[in-house]
């Protein structure tokens, strides 16, 4: 199987330090052609540092890294010619028009003016900004700017698209619109690498992902595999009223911990990990406990992250 798959990003013991600070502390990974690969982790986990190394704009501090089969230290420009990068900050030229941002960017890749114009029109159509073509970037909403940045990253028809926190700071409607575009790219066979600290984004978009924390990979797999391996099928969330302060949570936890395979005590709620959430609810009530609110839901990557790191993703 491995012999037939083409590894577009191949990292072994990859490290990145800034002075004394080790942002990435030795990670191994392969990204295969055609897949959507995710880095899930909180801010400061080392995701963006890793992305910058994969983008061939940040030298590695140790280990091996091959991108598209090339060495970024020697072949940075050749690698970047085949990448599309959607950085965390939009980095658009806000005084140029929407369309100029695309045509000018295409020129950096050595495309002819005619090719740039053709690509710009196609991409504006794709990200639904055709009507805004002549508008200055300054006048776009946050979601439109993100879409334009994604369009810009596609201008050179990249083999590999890097998206660093693509929907951070967007409202839910804008996020869904963007996910739809990214999903269509994936369907079209573009290899995607996405960093995110939103578990729903990772579940929606990624075929396979790594959970990063403190510069290391804590786990790897498909969203379903990770949930299966690191969590239970269901979760029962118990919230208690304001009269039950945080200090009482530990006492409460003691009363219910045998009802689940595992429990997590958070400042505002207690999570019971069990394969039958409703049964856990019934048992809680049988013990005479009166939670103010009860929610039974399926496990998510958020639970996986909590299990692996003891922390929630979005603080």
């Amino acid at each position: 199987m491995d012999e037939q798959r083409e590894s577009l990003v191949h990292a072994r013991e990859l490290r990145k330090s800034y002075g004394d600070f080790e942002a990435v502390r030795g990670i191994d990974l392969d990204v295969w052609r055609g897949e959507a690969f995710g880095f899930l982790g909180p801010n400061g986990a080392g995701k963006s540092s890793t992305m910058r190394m994969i983008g061939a704009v940040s030298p590695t501090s140790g280990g091996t890294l091959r991108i598209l089969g090339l060495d970024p230290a020697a072949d940075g420009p050749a690698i970047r010619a085949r990448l599309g990068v959607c950085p965390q900050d939009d980095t658009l030229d806000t005084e140029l028009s929407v369309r100029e941002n695309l045509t000018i960017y295409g020129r950096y890749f050595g495309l002819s003016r005619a090719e740039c114009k053709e690509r710009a029109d196609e991409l504006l159509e794709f990200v639904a900004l055709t009507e805004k073509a002549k508008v200055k970037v300054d006048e776009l909403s946050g979601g439109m700017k993100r879409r334009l940045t994604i369009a810009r990253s596609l201008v050179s028809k990249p083999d590999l698209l890097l998206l660093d926190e693509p929907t951070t700071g967007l409202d839910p409607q804008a996020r869904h619109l963007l996910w739809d575009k990214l999903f269509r790219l994936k369907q079209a066979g573009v290899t995607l690498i996405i960093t995110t600290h939103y578990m729903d984004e990772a579940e929606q978009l990624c075929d396979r992902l790594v959970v990063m924390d403190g510069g290391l990979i804590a786990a790897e797999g498909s969203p379903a595999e990770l949930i299966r391996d690191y969590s239970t099928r269901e979760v029962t969330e118990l919230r208690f009223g304001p009269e039950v302060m945080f200090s009482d949570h530990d006492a409460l936890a003691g009363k219910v911990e045998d009802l689940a395979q595992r429990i997590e005590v958070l400042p505002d709620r207690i999570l019971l990990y069990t394969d039958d959430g409703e049964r856990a609810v019934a048992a809680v009530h049988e013990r005479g406990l009166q939670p103010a609110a009860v929610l039974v839901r399926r496990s998510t990557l958020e639970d996986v992250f909590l299990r692996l790191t003891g922390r929630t993703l979005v603080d």
Partner: protein
Amino acid sequence: MAVALENGRRQFDYWLTVYKRTWKGSLISSFLLPMLYLAAMGIGLGSFVDSNGTGALGGVSYLQFIAPGLLAATALQIAVGESTYPVLSGLKWQKFYHSMIATPLRPADVVYGQLAFIAFRVASTCVVFLAVIAAFGGLRSPLGLLALPVVILVGMAASAPVVAFASTLQNDSGLAMVFRFGVVPAFLFSGAFFPVSQLPNWIEWLAYLSPLWHGVQLSRDLSLGTLHPWLVLLNLAYLLAWFAIGTWLAVRGFTRKLIG
């Protein structure tokens, strides 16, 4: 070299677009202001100076004395202006330099593109200014037209180190210093308005360190026909050294900032 040229060509459309959107706005600061100086000092103050004898100026009219100097000083001001806030914007505020190096362009290519654009800005303003000077009789000899390449070089000698300095800044407070302690004293004391030999000795020597003095000197010598071959070489070599070292530092600064 071939790669740098190709990558420069790839940036042409970008800088052309930037120029199209900014040239009108820069008309006043880069063109009208030096014209006012030329009128007020060259013609107004000049008639007063001329009526009292211009022996200290070498016997030429005050207008002909200051015109080449004013041209060089204008080149310096435009060059430094374009090397400060726009550079910080590309690195820090709008971050468009960051988007450029996510393509096959390298930090050095971005520096070269930015410097080439500044050279064009300097050249396009100075060519008009020089024409106006010539029309007003500010040149003594047609050789004075050769001041154009000289003042472009002055612009580059000032621009490259300022771009390098800007690339090390965290915010724009350092830029005010460039103007306060660099541009303004250089403008006033580099011999554009009076011979630096009129200054106290130690300031005179400071003036010789300024690249602007070398540009003023050379532009004036061309117009007045007072060239000394060895001084020409010294002036050119000094300006080229500022440009070369400044460019090297700018590439280093951009590389550190953009690739980390």
